[in-house]
């Protein structure tokens, strides 16, 4: 029987992340945990505690910090778990670099590079599973403000291949994550000690000041208007619309 996402989302809305993880892992034979090499390591710790078979993967863009690569090995050794590294398509990277150089994102925006180095390998991985688990939290950025604890993944589902996405940390704050890391003595990426809150690729990530939001440490050179495809229809005045429609 198909997993009832809407019912589960309501039932699990206030659930502890460990309970959400347990439901996810027990409900799907093919399920994978996405690990970014940052503070979402708490999910790796929780999965290790469950003792269930869960695939763990990380998107190796080829541009991560050396500290992150060392950290991935540290986590692998600490938990004795396999972490599958997903690499970008070599031909696509070669074409991008040949045409635009190694730092095109500073000029053309980060999406083109991210699509090749992160999204395509992610799509390839998710085509092999029924469900996946992420460390997405509502407090991370405005684009994640309404992330549910479980959802149908409309981005990566395909005809004949529905995909369910679990976000067990959706309700947790950054402080709660770090309290868990401290309490359970979970190994963490040393970049966090140097002011990095959100950790991505080396050229696109920088440390932030204590008062700054973690989003400020990513793609800081891009204007806010260039970061999104939203249509700001809320700015439309109803009177204008009515006038135009009547004129038409």
């Amino acid at each position, binding site marked *: 029987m198909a997993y009832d996402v809407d019912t589960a989302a309501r039932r699990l809305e206030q659930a502890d992340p460990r309970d959400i993880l347990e439901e996810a892992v027990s409900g799907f034979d093919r399920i994978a945990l996405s690990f970014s090499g940052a503070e979402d390591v708490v999910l790796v710790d929780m999965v290790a505690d469950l003792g269930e078979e869960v695939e763990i993967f990380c998107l190796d863009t080829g541009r991560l910090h050396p500290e992150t690569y060392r950290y991935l090995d540290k986590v692998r050794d600490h938990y004795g778990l396999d972490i599958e590294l997903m690499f970008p*398509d070599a031909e696509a990277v070669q074409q991008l670099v040949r045409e635009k150089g190694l730092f095109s994102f500073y000029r053309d925006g980060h999406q083109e590079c991210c*699509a*090749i180095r992160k*999204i395509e390998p992610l799509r390839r991985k998710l085509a092999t599973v029924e469900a996946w688990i992420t460390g997405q939290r509502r407090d991370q950025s405005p684009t994640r403000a309404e992330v549910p604890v479980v959802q149908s993944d409309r981005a*990566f589902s395909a005809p004949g291949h529905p995909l369910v996405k679990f976000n067990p940390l959706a309700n947790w704050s950054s402080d709660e994550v770090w309290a868990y890391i401290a309490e359970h003595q979970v190994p963490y990426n040393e970049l966090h000690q140097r002011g990095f809150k959100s950790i991505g690729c080396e050229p696109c990530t920088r440390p932030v000041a204590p008062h700054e939001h973690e989003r400020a440490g*990513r793609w800081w050179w891009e204007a806010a208007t260039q970061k999104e*495809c939203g249509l700001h229809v809320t700015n439309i005045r109803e009177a204008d619309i009515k006038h135009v429609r009547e004129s038409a």
Partner: protein
Amino acid sequence: MKITFVKKILADGSPCRKCGDVQKRLDETGQIERIDEVLIADERDPTSPGMILASDLGVSRAPFFVVEDGGERKVWTVYFKFAKEVLGGKEGKASDAARDILDDNPDLDYI
């Protein structure tokens, strides 16, 4: 069947980069011949045709496509899906499809 392509001009007056990418793909593949109407959604002008249409249809992103067929209107905000499902084209390069996914799902930025 009538197909409308809506592209955006940003609040600062500059053209939407993603819209330009999609326009380029339509031109390169010859799919532009299948588009009946191109509308501009100018964020500086809420009465521009594209903004009105977006409001009518409850669309909050651009670019997007509207297909009117038999009195029914359907919206696509992801180019590669539109091209595959409406124009019957091949999906194209995996990196193009990935770019569309990212543009349509900004929360994936931080994966």
